[in-house]
């Protein structure tokens, strides 16, 4: 599978990554090479093989629906880039 700079730009948008235009051809080459490597998988017939999402066959543990964590908003917001009055600040979203 070969990807060009335009496709890289589209994927980068989906991934919310600002890729500089001059870097797109190199990423396109790298990604195409990685997808060629990955394409080796298609040589194998996996029609009846059950996908394995996780290494251990285990069920998620349910727990009682109770509050187990204390509120640490100030502690956690102390490392935020920009906060005000207990809120995270971002550029204006709604005009």
């Amino acid at each position, binding site marked *: 599978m070969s*990807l060009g700079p335009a496709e*890289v730009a589209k*994927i*980068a*948008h*989906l*991934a*919310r*990554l*600002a*890729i*500089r235009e001059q870097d797109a051809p190199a*990423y396109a080459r*790298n*990604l195409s*090479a*990685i*997808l060629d*490597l*990955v*394409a*080796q*998988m*298609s040589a*194998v017939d*996996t029609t009846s*093989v*059950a*996908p*394995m*999402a*996780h*290494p*251990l066959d*285990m069920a*998620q*543990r349910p*727990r009682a629906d109770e509050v187990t964590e204390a509120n*640490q908003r100030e*502690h*956690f917001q*102390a*490392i*935020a*880039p*920009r906060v005000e009055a207990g809120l*995270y600040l*971002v*550029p*204006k*979203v709604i005009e």
Partner: protein
Amino acid sequence: MNLPSPTAMHDQTIARLGAGLAAGEFSSEELTRVFLARIEQFNPGLNAFITVTAESALAQARAADERRRRGEAGPLTGVPIAHKDIFCTNGVRTSCGSRMLDRFIAPYNATVVENLAAAGAVTLGKTNMDEFAMGSSNETSFYGPVRNPWDLDAVPGGSSGGSAAAVAARLAPGATGTDTGGSIRQPAALCGITGIKPTYGRVSRWGMIAYASSLDQGGPMARTAEDCALLLGAMAGFDRRDSTCVDRPVPDYVALLDRPLHGLKIGLPREYFGEGLDGEVARVVEAAITEYRKLGAEMVEISLPNSQLAIPAYYVIAPAECSSNLARFDGVRYGHRCENPKDLLDLYTRSRAEGFGAEVTRRILVGTFVLSAGYYDAYYLKAQQIRRLISDDFRRAFDQVDVIAGPTSPTVAFNLGEKVDDPITMYLSDIYTIAVNLAGLPGLSLPVGFVGQRPVGLQLIGNYFAEDQLLNVAHRYQQVTDWHQRSPVAFA
């Protein structure tokens, strides 16, 4: 017992340092000062540490000495160690080797950090690593590459390259690492130390910054299997805060080290000794296998027929999980934020582009692509099916044999800069380690010789939760050989 003299404290194993502390030969504070002085002396040339926590290390050491006076010490109490900078440490920068987290002060401790602290271990600092654990050479770190103590022109391996180099250079007697595709075992091999990736779920991932959540697992790196047994015993165990952590008793790994190997069946996968394996490395690995025969083990040739598909499947699954995990870095709640964003999209895209390096960017892009509409079945679903085939190969092999052995890495450490511009060649250096993560099995690397001055590692793969057996098999070898006692001359 032969106790270490103060001048050679840095060259002792954790087991012997623990004995020295217990016998009152030296205090934890004295011991910690020895390692801090070595870090100060040697780290500028190696770049193994990103952050050194000298002040808190000395406070922890004094607390450990106090605990010992109260008669409450265990085998790790007062022993200094280092943590890979992927484990959150409360109040201490936890960078994950990335500009994204360059100024991130973790607000809590990882469970692994808590568990080792509860055992009384002293934290010397945080070790360098490939950015977000993505790399096999430690060259993708925002803080620059780590050098291999055996040869400063060589890479230490990755992604736990700082931990491996720190232990090999005797800047710390043990360290934590994490392994998603070989990131404990490959640097352990390339730096001539011992490291074990436990079964998925054996060690809590809580507070361990996620790369690929169905593959990531933390484990210890040290000089010997005995030291890894001591560290793993403290690290492992159930944690309700990690929903994939397994609720199963932790065996006394140290007590199980000495079992004889007579009659042990070791499987040698023919796929691990074929094309791509360096001839000199093959000779060293074969010599180790001969040693195991002398110890009474029986060799059985086996096949893991889908081995060549492990790297292709991994480079779908790991990037897919990475693209999803790293979506949390948005410049809003923590981590790097760009200057003067013009709108919300600009805030996201520039913060992420500035915060992530090239390899992390590549993997996020690959992961985003394979999960995008129209491609899921061809890539992600297919990779999960291949993952099942690889796992089934191992299940069949463990019907025939007790453990599997082979080279950890196809070559010894390569030169700095040699593969950094060629991602595919770099990926191939994990050819023997990646399948183990896909299956979720435990794997260990131990030093078994050299090619020139660069170390060679033997990989042992065990069945699920057979960490005790891997440590036992490695320990018996280390009782009759001395590769694990060699130290790089420049750091003697």
